């Protein structure tokens, strides 16, 4: 699979237009308006075979076809819905001084959500948009705290966003700034933070 620089071409690049996936063809995706996770969610909830949906998404992401990470995942559905609710809002959307959300960072946050959905349930973060207009994920439970901000990518590159996070796990503080996120996998440090018990 080639390196993906734009999340909206992820699936279209990965599945030939003529490939049959049940009743689905990749041409069915409207790749101009909505990000891939949302298109797939809409497609999946329109009566398609969920096994086909999950396996095609996993194939598109270049990962082995293991558990149905997408199907019936209430957390992912709620998170994508929350992100969608911020689209099109203007500066002052919070009734105060917040900047308008930046569409590219919302796209990246949707991609990130797909990976977060694979984390243990007690580490999946809640999404909001900060006063700077950047999506932000956070979780505060016993022995685990995460506050992660999705920032616009800084330079033209293969990444779709830069991630900055502050975390506390088992009492140890971690701060990472401007880590590139390419949309195809979690940064190693973040994956380790979410999925392992050891720093």
């Amino acid at each position, binding site marked *: 699979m080639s390196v993906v620089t734009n999340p909206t071409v992820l699936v279209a690049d990965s599945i030939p237009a003529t490939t049959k996936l049940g009743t689905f063809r990749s041409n069915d995706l409207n790749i101009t308006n909505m990000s891939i996770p949302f298109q797939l969610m809409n497609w999946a909830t329109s009566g398609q075979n969920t096994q086909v949906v999950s396996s095609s998404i996993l194939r598109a992401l270049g990962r082995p076809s293991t558990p149905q990470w997408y199907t019936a995942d209430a957390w992912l559905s709620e998170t994508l819905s929350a992100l969608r609710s911020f689209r099109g809002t203007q500066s002052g959307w919070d009734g105060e001084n917040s900047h308008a959300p930046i569409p590219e960072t919302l796209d990246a946050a949707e991609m990130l959500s797909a990976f977060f959905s694979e984390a243990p349930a007690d580490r999946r973060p809640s999404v909001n948009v900060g*006063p700077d207009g950047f999506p932000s994920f956070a979780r505060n439970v016993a022995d685990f705290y995460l506050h992660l901000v999705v920032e616009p990518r800084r330079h033209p590159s293969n990444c779709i966003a830069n991630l900055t996070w502050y975390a506390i796990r088992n009492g140890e503080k971690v701060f990472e700034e401007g880590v590139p996120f390419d949309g195809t996998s979690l940064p190693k440090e973040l994956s380790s933070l979410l999925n392992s018990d050891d720093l």
Partner: protein
Amino acid sequence: MTCENCRAANLHPVAEERARKISDAAPRPCGCELFRMSHHSPGPVLDTEDLCLLVSDPQMIMDGWIHPSKLMNFDTCGQSVLREGASDQEFLITMGELVTRSKEKGRDRWCLGILRFSAEAVRYCASDRFLCVYDTGMEGKPYHADLMCAPLVPDNATSGQLKRARMELAREVLIAIGRDLVGPLEFRAGILASYARSS
């Protein structure tokens, strides 16, 4: 004169510079707390007063805690709260303004509740000063107050250092504020019920 400097700083027209202006107006941390900051205000905020943060967006709350993305403004424009002395009418006006302004910018908003905490809880961390609580009353809202802080890093700090300082502070404030969220149907015998989602 410090008192006049503080009042002038409170009227600074650039919202994102207000915390620094107010901090600079007094010779010691949170020095402007000693003075009545606005002629609309009944007087400085006492340590024993309860403060009320209006929660009007579902993404503001995670597991009962305030989302840290909502707590990143203390060194810029500050975080608005109402003091416990505010009348029912003042709560209604404030919530109404939030809902209206937000809707005008494309985002629906409703009352999820009031998060209550004492001024003392956010003013002191052990023996150290924490946030400053200023009585920034305004016309029609005399019990309005702002949570602010002095500059978190030196002027020559990197953007990463500033982000880390803001994120660390957000976590500390999140814990200090706690989770005493009172729903709109319970708060003051339901005065904000008309702003609850079901209505």
